[in-house]
């Protein structure tokens, strides 16, 4: 008699424990997405008259401007991911393997500091530095290196730099945590068995850090492809970004239906890129993102 009651109580406790999490997932993630998906299937035929269909998606496919922008966003985000890896890896290696215990914490904190200010402020910081009459240009002029002001703002390189700056931390954190778990013996064994620095890096350190690398790349790619402020504020005349197009659809053109469709296209696109990345690197989601 008492056992079923205890079991019920335990089940109830379990349900109550998971309730907030389940509600959170359901209310804040699942439901809005379903709503957006339904919205994306609506077509406006006349004021206050809608029909269901795939027109919004077809429109996307038929308009080269849209998918060119999407491809551009994807390519630039991949570049950002690659650069973030290139910059983040040595930093993470230094923090995890070379720095002392106390320096480690300080360095980690230093990496975190940029996150204490908002995206907007960070972008304005870059603007102040890079504009034609900005700090760097003026300093270069004052030091006599250049004699006419140079404009370093409003081009794709600035966007890439701003994005790398914003996302590199999300590369460093998973890398530090995987590299931290790597026994130093492993690296020494790599040398001891005859490997030079490059072999040890390529055959041992990188394969070992692969879960962290993939996790970092996924996060960084997603963040970069989904970012809005940095590409808008630092970008130049030709730097269109896909999120800007979603915003325009929603806000400037009152076209929520097509904006929702664009949102799903972006979600699908980034998911495919991530899936391809996982396939090519031979990793799984559970061995990378879920692990770190």
């Amino acid at each position: 008699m008492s056992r079923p009651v205890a079991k019920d109580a335990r089940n109830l406790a379990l349900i109550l424990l998971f309730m907030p999490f389940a509600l959170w997932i359901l209310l804040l993630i699942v439901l809005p997405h379903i709503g957006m998906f339904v919205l994306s299937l609506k077509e406006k035929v006349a004021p206050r008259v809608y029909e269901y269909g795939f027109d919004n998606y077809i429109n996307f496919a038929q308009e080269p401007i849209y998918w060119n922008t999407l491809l551009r966003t994807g390519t630039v985000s991949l570049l950002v991911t690659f650069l973030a890896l290139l910059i983040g890896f040595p930093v993470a290696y230094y923090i995890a393997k070379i720095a002392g215990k106390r320096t480690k914490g300080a360095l980690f904190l230093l990496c975190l500091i940029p996150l204490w200010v908002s995206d907007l402020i960070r972008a304005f910081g870059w603007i102040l530095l890079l504009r034609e009459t900005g700090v760097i240009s003026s300093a270069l002029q004052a030091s006599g290196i250049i004699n006419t002001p140079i404009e370093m703002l409003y081009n794709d390189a600035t966007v890439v730099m701003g994005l790398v700056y914003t996302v590199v931390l999300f590369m460093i954190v998973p890398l530090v945590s995987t590299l931290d778990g790597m026994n130093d013996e492993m690296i020494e064994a790599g040398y001891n068995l005859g490997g030079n620095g490059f072999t040890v890096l390529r055959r041992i350190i990188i394969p070992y850090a692969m879960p962290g690398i993939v996790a970092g790349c996924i996060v960084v790619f997603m963040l970069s492809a989904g970012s809005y402020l940095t590409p808008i504020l630092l970008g130049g005349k030709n730097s269109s970004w896909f999120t800007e197009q979603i915003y325009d659809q929603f806000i400037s053109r009152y076209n929520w239906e097509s904006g929702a469709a664009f949102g799903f296209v972006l979600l699908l696109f980034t998911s495919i890129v991530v899936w391809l990345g996982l396939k090519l690197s031979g990793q799984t989601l559970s061995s990378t993102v879920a692990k770190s």
Partner: protein
Amino acid sequence: MNTSNTVSDLACSQISKCFGSVQAVDSVSFDIPPGSFFSILGPSGCGKTTLMRMIAGFESPDNGDIHIKGSSVLRIPPNRRNVKMVFQHLALFPMMNVYDNIAYGLRCNGSSRSDINKKVHEVLERIALPDVANREIHQLSGGQKQRIAIARCMVLDPDVLLLDEPLGALDLKLREAMKIELKLLQHQFNTTFVYITHDQSEALVMSDHVAVMNEGRFEQIGTPQNLYHHPKSAFVAGFVGDSNQWSGKVIERTSESITVACGAGFDAQSFATDMTSAGIGDHASVYVRPEHIQVELANTDPTVRVNTVNSIVGHIDSLLFNGANSRVLVRDQLGELIEADITLTGSHDDPKPGDAVTLSWAPARSLCF
């Protein structure tokens, strides 16, 4: 131990290493003849790992020189020294399978694909694991990992194989089995093994020669038997094998024997050795191994006693039954515990806790420092 007509595989002369103010290794010198099993035995923190890392090239000595096969290796980076190392946690590469782990070193030195294939399979045969080439590391048992770690080094045909307490992580039963296996592998490959351990039984069982290390220095180098029976210092006597130890003052010294008043109600007489220069009145320590102590029930006829000197009376505190290696703990009149080996036959006249006993040993069996 060094014959002049062969070049030793590994020779260190006067090497020292400081970390800040800590003298980790203090002018250590030794020579290892080809094909022998050499152990460095010492408590943790004695500098043995630093010594090994200097041989492997991960640290460079402040002073002294290291020769492998007769030539100095100080200027050779670790990846080009023909000294391979089995790490404490083995450091097998988890992202590679067994084959790739073993092939790693061969690939690094640029062997051809067919050569690699042949050598990997040969070495797997030799360690009696011919079928594991395609397994992942996590699919191996502890003992198998051990052997793969050794094979990974041996496939490169090193001049010296260093082993850094590789048995530490194994459970007791496996450790016992691996001791024997390591020794056999060493014979089979006929390569010089340098084995680091803090476990004296590992060192004694496997080694041809053992160096006992303490506080950065070598206390004594010798065969296991030599170390066990003829320790040259109090540290070696205490560290290698079990010993009962008393300290006291020398009260008598002749050309043949030394007598120490141990304050435990008896005077210990030892045969004089050349190891102690203690004169009358000096402090000295006496070491007696449990297996050299004779245990007799107090009611035994005094005339049949084996030893006439060095006897203590006490009561049996407890019996430690371990088959042929059974031991008895005897509490003397001062309350100190003394260990002695006995044979328990299982009959009713075996000693029991509480029995009064007399312990004794021959002066030749006790050591005084």
